[in-house]
């Protein structure tokens, strides 16, 4: 075992993963213990509350040690840990291999770190729930699968993780399965994700057909030579992969499941539907950056879809009243940003935003969770059935929940891109590169979406914490701050939301020191992809599409965001809202946005109903007519043949022998003639 000082030292020895399997095993053990525990210690709140978080924190500790070890070691190729051979069929050799490189290490840190915090938070949030142990089992299982996804050294293992997190997502969205709506939300997430998984699978098949292997290292090493730049194959592979990403990461056209996924417990939303799982698509694109770099069409598609999603989701977010819905659309929008980044080739920026977004979006969700927790308790005390999630029922909570209020403002400022919060650095980098690489329209959209973000987030804060309290006279006295086990995670995440961006500070900014820690860290991973891109004409213009350097536009965007925040605040802080029960749905443009551009309805009309009609036809004609008919016909035919055959069955051995001899004679005759 390496000692810590030794880990911090810089050595030139190759990096050897420390207890690699235990990173996966700990959460799995936690899941198993809690899973069986759900049947054994039904009412016990202590054991799951200790085992669940401890497993993840343990994994986090191992990851940190590994990170330090990797940082100390010389730059190197990915380290692959082969556990065992999973399947061997023909040419296909799929091993359970774990890939330790800079990208997966960063993801490990983010996943286990944020997970640890959220697990701790869950101890408080879920305390009242009867499915406490089951909850932690799912959550641990999710962490396990997420780590598998991140660590997989080939498409197949990644796909296992991919499906596993999908499963856990489904389980957790439908955690309160007694509620039909929640359960169907889980189903929706699952089904929509299947469409994406189909893309992933097809991509995987294509990769195997063309490379004969599924290992990332081999595929990426041989891809530039094996496939034509911009050719059909690589485009198809990447587009299918991206189809998978749109499903998992909630991009157009498959984003519709994510807002509904808010049916799950709020910590789940924070962990899965904001910080980790939904970023898997981004991670996958980054992981397969070499392939994407070779397919300009796909890149354009990725960037365009990302930008479109960012704008669309941002607009919808402005008119939502459910606090979690707002955050959900915000997540979709931010994911769009990340896709824009990885689409245009600014992979580091995309991953950077992924990281910071994990911090502040987790913070925001947990904050909203705290709010909901408080509201729920208040309503519960007075036996009210009002919706605790609806912002129209909130307002003026800052007096009751100061810590939540403060930390959520940190998150809001961070997501809005106000200097020096984390979001400023990452989002600014994306927007800047969009312009600098010459994608003018995207740059514009990104800017607009950024301003919209500042707007709807301020709206959320104002409606929730400022103004008068609309909870209702009866419930109001019962509002109070959440326990320490819940606000300490908020504080931790708030700190991370502030300092998280300081790992990467552009040279161009005045006053601030230039930091390239993340860039340097991820450089070895994205170098091949960057090389391909630069060989085909990608270059940094050092100015935006309409002129001006990075420092200037960074200033402009932060100032603009600040202005938007101030304006929104002023406009809304004195406005009054009717409580949700009395309010009417908005009309006009606001109505369209409130109804999410009627996308769900559109999908219903265009896809679901025709499909239903088609399947109904299939049932009538194909199933009942053709299949059943042929089966029945076969049965009748068999019966008829059997009846004829039974005529030959005399029950006399000699007769059978005669048939047998005749048959043998026929066979022999064919030999002879």
């Amino acid at each position, binding site marked *: 075992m390496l000692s810590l000082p030794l880990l911090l030292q810089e050595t030139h020895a190759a990096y050897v993963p420390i207890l690699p399997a235990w990173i996966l095993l700990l959460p799995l053990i936690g899941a198993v213990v809690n899973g069986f525990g759900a049947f054994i210690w039904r009412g016990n709140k202590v054991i799951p509350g200790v085992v669940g978080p401890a497993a993840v924190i343990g994994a986090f500790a191992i990851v940190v040690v590994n990170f330090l070890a990797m940082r100390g070691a010389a730059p190197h190729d990915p380290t692959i840990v082969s556990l065992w051979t999973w399947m061997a069929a023909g040419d296909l050799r799929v091993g359970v291999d774990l890939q330790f490189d800079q990208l997966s290490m960063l993801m490990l840190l983010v996943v286990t770190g944020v997970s640890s915090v959220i697990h701790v938070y869950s101890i408080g949030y879920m305390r009242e729930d009867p499915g406490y142990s089951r909850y932690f089992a799912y959550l641990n299982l999710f962490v396990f699968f997420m780590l598998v996804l991140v660590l997989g050294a080939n498409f197949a293992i990644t796909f296992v993780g991919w499906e596993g997190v999908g499963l856990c997502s489904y389980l957790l969205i439908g955690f309160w399965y007694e509620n039909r709506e929640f359960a169907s939300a889980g189903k929706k997430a699952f089904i929509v994700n299947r469409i994406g998984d189909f893309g992933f699978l097809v991509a995987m098949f294509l990769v195997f057909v063309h490379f004969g292997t599924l290992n990332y290292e081999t595929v990426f090493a041989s891809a530039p030579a094996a496939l034509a730049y911009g050719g059909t194959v690589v485009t198809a592979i990447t587009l299918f992969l991206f189809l998978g990403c749109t499903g998992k990461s909630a991009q157009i056209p498959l984003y519709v499941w994510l807002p509904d996924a808010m049916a799950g417990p709020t910590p789940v939303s924070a962990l899965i539907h904001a910080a980790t799982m939904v970023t898997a698509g981004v991670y996958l694109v980054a992981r397969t950056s070499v392939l994407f770099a070779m397919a300009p069409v796909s890149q354009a598609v990725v960037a365009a879809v990302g930008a479109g999603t960012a704008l669309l989701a941002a607009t919808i977010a402005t008119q939502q009243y459910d606090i979690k819905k707002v955050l959900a659309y915000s997540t979709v929008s931010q994911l769009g940003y990340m896709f824009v980044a990885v689409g245009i080739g600014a992979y580091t920026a995309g991953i950077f935003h992924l990281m910071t977004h994990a911090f502040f979006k987790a913070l925001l969700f947990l904050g909203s969770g705290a709010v909901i927790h408080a509201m729920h308790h208040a309503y519960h005390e007075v036996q009210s059935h009002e919706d605790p999630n609806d912002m129209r029922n909130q307002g003026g909570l800052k007096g009751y929940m100061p810590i939540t209020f403060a930390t959520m403002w940190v998150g809001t400022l961070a997501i809005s891109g106000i200097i020096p919060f984390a979001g400023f650095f990452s989002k600014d980098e994306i927007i800047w590169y969009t312009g600098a690489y010459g994608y003018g329209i995207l740059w514009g959209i990104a800017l607009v979406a950024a301003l919209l973000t500042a707007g709807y987030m301020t709206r959320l804060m104002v409606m929730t914490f400022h103004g008068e309290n609309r909870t209702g006279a009866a419930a109001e006295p019962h509002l109070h701050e959440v326990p320490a086990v819940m606000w300490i995670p908020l504080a931790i995440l708030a700190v991370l939301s502030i300092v998280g961006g300081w790992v990467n500070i552009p040279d161009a900014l005045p006053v601030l020191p230039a930091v390239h820690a993340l860039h340097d860290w991820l450089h070895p991973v994205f170098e091949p992809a960057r090389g391909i891109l630069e060989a085909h004409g990608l270059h940094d213009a050092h100015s935006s599409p309409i002129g001006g350097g990075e420092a200037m536009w960074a200033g402009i965007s932060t100032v603009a965001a600040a202005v938007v925040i101030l304006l929104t605040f002023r406009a809304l802080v004195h406005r009054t809202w009717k409580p949700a029960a009395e309010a009417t749905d908005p009309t006009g443009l606001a109505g369209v946005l409130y109804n999410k551009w009627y996308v769900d309805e559109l999908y219903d009309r265009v896809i679901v109903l025709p499909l239903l009609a088609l399947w109904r036809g299939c049932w009538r004609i194909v199933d009942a007519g053709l299949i059943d008919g042929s089966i029945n016909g076969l049965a009748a035919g068999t019966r008829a043949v059997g009846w004829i055959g039974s005529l030959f069955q005399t029950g006399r051995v*000699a007769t059978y022998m*005669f048939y047998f*001899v*005749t048959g*043998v*004679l026929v066979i*022999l*005759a064919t*030999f*002879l003639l």
Partner: protein
Amino acid sequence: MMEAFFFLLFAVMAAGGAIMMIASRNPVSSLMYLVLAFFALSGIFVLLDAHFLAAVQVIVYAGAIMVLFLFVIMLLNLGHREDIDMRGHLARLVALVAGSALFAAVAALVLRGDESTLASEESRLAVEAMVRARGAVGALAEPLFTSYLVPFELTSLLLLVAIVGAIVLARRRAP
């Protein structure tokens, strides 16, 4: 020459025994003719250098299986029921035709076949060398206990099952 003489002797014994077996009306006669045929066959096995199988042929067929048949014939007292045994003329004709056709077809195939594949000198020498090196029993034991060990063990299982099955089937049920 000697070999040919003995082969002819045994072949006639075997063929005659077989024919008499199906022609005898008395089951015990049939059985004894069959034993004769088996005995002659074991002689032919010896001529074909399959000494071990010749011995096993006598032990298993003549010594065990046919005694079992005989025992059953006697136990069920079938030795004297001769009236119903043979079928009518038509069946006999059919049997004659079918049997002759079968024999003719196979014999024609054998005669048309390339004889060298059956008895190439080198293969015969190889088998003989094997037999000389390990003895008649050892030569057969070699493949039996290496490549065919599992089938061999399964055979013992088969026999066990047969024993149990026979006992269960033939046991007199308690009234």
